[in-house]
């Protein structure tokens, strides 16, 4: 089986609002796929459709070769799912809750949970209601990973986690891939996806506007560049460089936007004394803006 997830023209509307508009998506077996988009773009809608929590108006989905509509329970036994809003009854301990979920999967050894809890520094004896948002999210991660599912579907997995735990999660994700598991994770933080994902799709207003290798997506993204020189420079030597736009030179400081490789710009700058060169990580908004304005080129 080559695809862990396959959707064809998958659409979902709420009244007049098109939450998902003819989504064609393909997630390959064994990869980490990043699903990027701003809030309300349709990420969670897609994920809920894959798990048969909601039903499409048209189109179809196939997950692990199964139809979520008719083979849902069987399918979900092979999936680990972390909802975007991980909310559970707070009056139980994490241990109680995880044991219950394990039992719904035919029972899991305590060790499966203990290892993950230790790794994420989670106290299983505490009532879930008493946990901080970050610690609750850890409970969510444990329940998604504990049965080592073939496919992990994670909706904003790092939400609420501190940087240290985010890093721990990202290494859990790459280790899962090394064991042959497939990961489908949504995020609005490009950086995280970039660190671990093989491929990514960008969704906006219910439509997939780009899908590619993460590196390729990023190289096509726009960056804000600021260069400080030792002496004043002129705009003319930089304005014809490919990919450079919105060029502004103010004495020793050059600002511009750059799409694609930075090589030519750097070499042009290197003819002068360079005090500082800042190329800002393209944030998701910029990336979206870029893909949005260039939408016609990427979507047929």
């Amino acid at each position, binding site marked *: 089986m080559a695809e862990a997830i396959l959707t064809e023209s998958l659409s979902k509307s709420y009244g007049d609002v098109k939450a998902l508009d003819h989504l064609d998506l393909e997630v390959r077996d064994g990869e980490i796929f990043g699903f990027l988009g701003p809030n309300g773009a349709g990420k969670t809608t897609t994920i809920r459709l894959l798990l048969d929590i909601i039903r499409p108006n048209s189109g179809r989905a196939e997950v692990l070769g199964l139809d979520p509509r008719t083979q849902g*329970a069987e399918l979900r036994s092979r999936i680990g799912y972390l909802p975007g809003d991980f909310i559970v009854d707070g009056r139980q301990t994490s241990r*109680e809750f995880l044991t219950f979920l394990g039992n719904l999967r035919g029972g899991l050894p305590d060790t499966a949970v203990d290892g993950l809890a230790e790794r994420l520094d989670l106290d299983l004896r505490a009532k879930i209601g008493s946990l901080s948002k970050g610690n609750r999210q850890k409970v969510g991660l444990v329940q998604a990973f504990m049965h080592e599912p073939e496919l992990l579907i994670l909706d904003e997995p790092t939400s609420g986690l501190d940087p240290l735990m985010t890093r721990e999660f990202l290494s859990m994700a790459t280790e899962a891939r090394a064991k042959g598991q497939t990961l489908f994770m949504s995020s609005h933080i490009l950086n995280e996806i970039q660190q671990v994902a093989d491929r990514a799709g960008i969704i906006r207003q219910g439509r997939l506007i780009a899908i590619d290798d993460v590196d390729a997506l990023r190289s096509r993204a726009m960056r804000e560049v600021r260069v400080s020189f030792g002496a004043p420079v002129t705009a003319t030597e930089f304005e014809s460089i490919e990919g450079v736009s919105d060029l502004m030179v103010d004495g020793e400081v050059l600002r511009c936007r750059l799409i694609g490789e930075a090589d030519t710009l750097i070499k042009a700058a290197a003819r002068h004394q360079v005090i500082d060169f800042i190329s800002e990580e393209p944030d998701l908004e910029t990336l979206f803006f870029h893909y949005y304005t260039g939408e016609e080129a990427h979507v047929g």
Partner: protein
Amino acid sequence: MLADIWTKTLWDQRRSLLGWAIGFVAVAVVYGGFYPFASTPEYAELIDNLPAGLAEAFGWDEISTAHGYLGSTVYGILGPVLVIIMAIAFGAKAIAGNEEAGHLELLIAQPVTRSRVVLQRAVALVIATLVGGLAVFISIVAIRGPVDIELPIGNIAVASLNLALLGAVFGTLALLVGGFVGKRGLVVGVSAVVAVATYLANGLAPQIEELAWLQDFSPFYWFAGTATLRDGIDLPKTLLLAAVSLAFVAIATVAFNRRDVGV
């Protein structure tokens, strides 16, 4: 207790259920305990002076007898009110309340079918109403000697079972409405309106000749507290309570299988 959905549901509701059980015991013991005061000639006279229709509507016409007294108090007003409120609360929580709180999404994302969720929640609900009925049964049997309630234990048992099943009817009705819509407030509202309407249909409809037929459709009529305490089981009525509950669960299952969750 963490083995399956129905056991987990009861486990999560253990404190609440204990509170309700205490409430049932209190109602049964306190009201039952007052029977000696109601079985006096003075009290009977008081009731005799009430308009006949009113006394009949509330089942007070036989209030000086054990079955009449219990049938209009523990098994007439407070018992049904308690069991129905509890059942609607649990039934509304089972799907709609859980869904609104955001707890249901993760459960149905597990390797379980929607039907299993509804059926097991229904089992937990019916067990809760049976606990209520059992609490009343044990209480009445316990005070039977001291306050001279001369009724066969079998009749008390059936009336208590009917009480539990009356709760089950409205609890599964709440489950049914929740099968269609995930709004707890709406579920509670619809269920409560039906409960009040069918209560009136049982008590008041027979006073009006043209509406008398309505009584046949009231679960309170099938419940028949006073008659059951007096005559024992009326099998078709008890079965009807159970059958209607089962039908409601079936409809809830079908409806819940067809809709989106958590939107």
